[in-house]
């Protein structure tokens, strides 16, 4: 397992685990970022910016600190 930050650009992966308190988990979950979901990482924004990813064709930006708490398995 690797974190979202480590996942290479353009790769697909499945979310395996989300660390952190219930607050964070819930915030990610209501945006459909939850365990078992398939994602595609588009890129990391410039200058160590947020991770941009895609879930079911929908794009979102997630800060690095949060992205480090999302563990995925590449497919």
């Amino acid at each position, binding site marked *: 397992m690797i974190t979202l930050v480590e996942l290479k650009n353009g790769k697909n992966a499945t979310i395996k685990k989300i660390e952190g308190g219930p607050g964070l988990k*819930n915030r990610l979950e209501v*945006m459909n970022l939850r365990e078992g979901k398939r994602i595609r990482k*588009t890129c990391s*924004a*410039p200058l160590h910016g*947020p991770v941009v990813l895609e879930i*079911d*064709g929908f794009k979102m*930006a997630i800060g690095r600190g949060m992205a480090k708490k999302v563990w995925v398995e590449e497919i």
Partner: protein
Amino acid sequence: MKKILLMGNPNVGKSVVFSRLTGVNVIQSNYPGTTVGFTKGHLKIGKNEMDIIDVPGTYSLSPSCKAEEVARDMFFDEKPDLIINVLDVTNLERNLYLTLQILEKNIPTVILLNMWDAAKRKGIHVNLEKLQEIIGLKVIPAVAVTGEGIKDLVNIIDEITLNKNIKLSKIPKMDDSEKWAFIGEILSEVQKIEHRHPSLLEKLEDASVKPFSGIIIAIIVLFITMQVIIGIGEFLINYILDPLYYQYYGPFITSLVQNSIPTGFIHDILIGSGYEYETSFGLLTTGIYVIFAVVLPYILSFYFILGFLEDFGYLPRLAVLLDSIMHKLGLHGYATIPIILGFGCNVPAMLSTRILEGKREKFIATTLIAISIPCMAQTAVIIGLLGKYGIQYIILIYGTLLILFIVLGSILNFLLKGESPEIFFEIPPYRIPHMETLLKKTWMRVKGFLLEALPFVFLGILAINILYLIGVMGALSNLLSPIMSQMLGLPDQAIDALIMGFLRKDLATAMLAPLNLSPNQLVVACTVLATSFPCIATFVVLIKEIGVKDMLKTVVLMLSVALITGTILNLILNGLL
């Protein structure tokens, strides 16, 4: 009267539906967080009347920012008789989560599946009958921007509010993981997705956030944006409004007033010393000229272009690109949106900071906007005053403001305790703007500008005339003259303009015109005016948004920053530093 609430995820088209139902125009844009407060409207179907409320979008009933709090409070406190739950049909899975939360509360609900057109384009098929059967509620497909489906919605609203045909969903209460599992089941029953190749727009979407291509695109967009705004603005002024004023309106109004009103106070207030706008200072001369022939053209071109970028969906991408830099200033990328709105007018910008999560961020964002983001009304007058001397002077002002923005942000970030929260938001798809909606939005903002500018500019001109008449201005000038001349290198009369800055920045800046200032002095005066004090409208919103105490801090900061910056600029420009 029955009360109806429009609820749903951000950016699904609630505000468009609201406008369609009530005829009340509200701002609609292609990014989450457009609506940050609520708007009430009225719907009348035959004799059946009701209130409809447009609410900020939210992903769940547990809020993560001020705007979402508004949505939750409306839902729980307003006791709605009916919820119109608007869904983006291209993203049913995520949207249905909020739906399930709403249905648990046993309030009559109608489901509106919006963006039906986009779903067709994307190859997404939804079996309506089946969905209706599973949820046990009426489900209506719609394309809010064209009005498709709105008639059906109105019919259902009529039935339910007349207490006919009320059905409550029989879906039992579930915990979160049960909800997601249930949503999965629903989708496998009702939704089919054909695979489509990514369109050109979709490829462009990715290119605009990738490090290299993203920055290139951003530079091109900003360059074109500025060129077009200035191009349209100048065209309107030089070829339409200036000729209109000087050839027709000016001579006409002067002779009209001269022939009908004897010389004296009223005569002077109305047309001052003639129709040369710089020196006249009459309500019907300078007042009208500044609003209609200096500021309005730029307001028009700015809001048209801003609206285009908003509806296209570009702004959130800029937010992603700027996120890292913003973190150094105690903000995160999404603060880009209120900041950009601030270049139009600081008032909606202050409101828009509600999309930021924390109090600290909100304070930093509002302060930075108040100090270093000049509104379009002021920019227009600055271009009018300094444009003829060359672009370098305008760059000098904006460069100074940019440096201020960065320095102040870094200092505030360092001084204020707490961390800046991280960015986390949905990036909407690119959409080709719907022209009618775009024009309506532009007109709405222009109208908003006129309604606010006209009374305040007139009031300002009236005040100046009266203050001169009773000699207050002279006394103030004497009192503050050392500051003006020694620190800022400005003549005493410039004090009038700085004081007027509290009322209206555009009028205040225009008051510099007759003073025969050198371009360098104009740069100092315009910068001090931009930074020194929020205009009265912004001031009022600031108090509401951050409270009296924080507002006082901001104001003290503004005054000191203005004096220091003005002094340094003055010294540098005169080669003394």
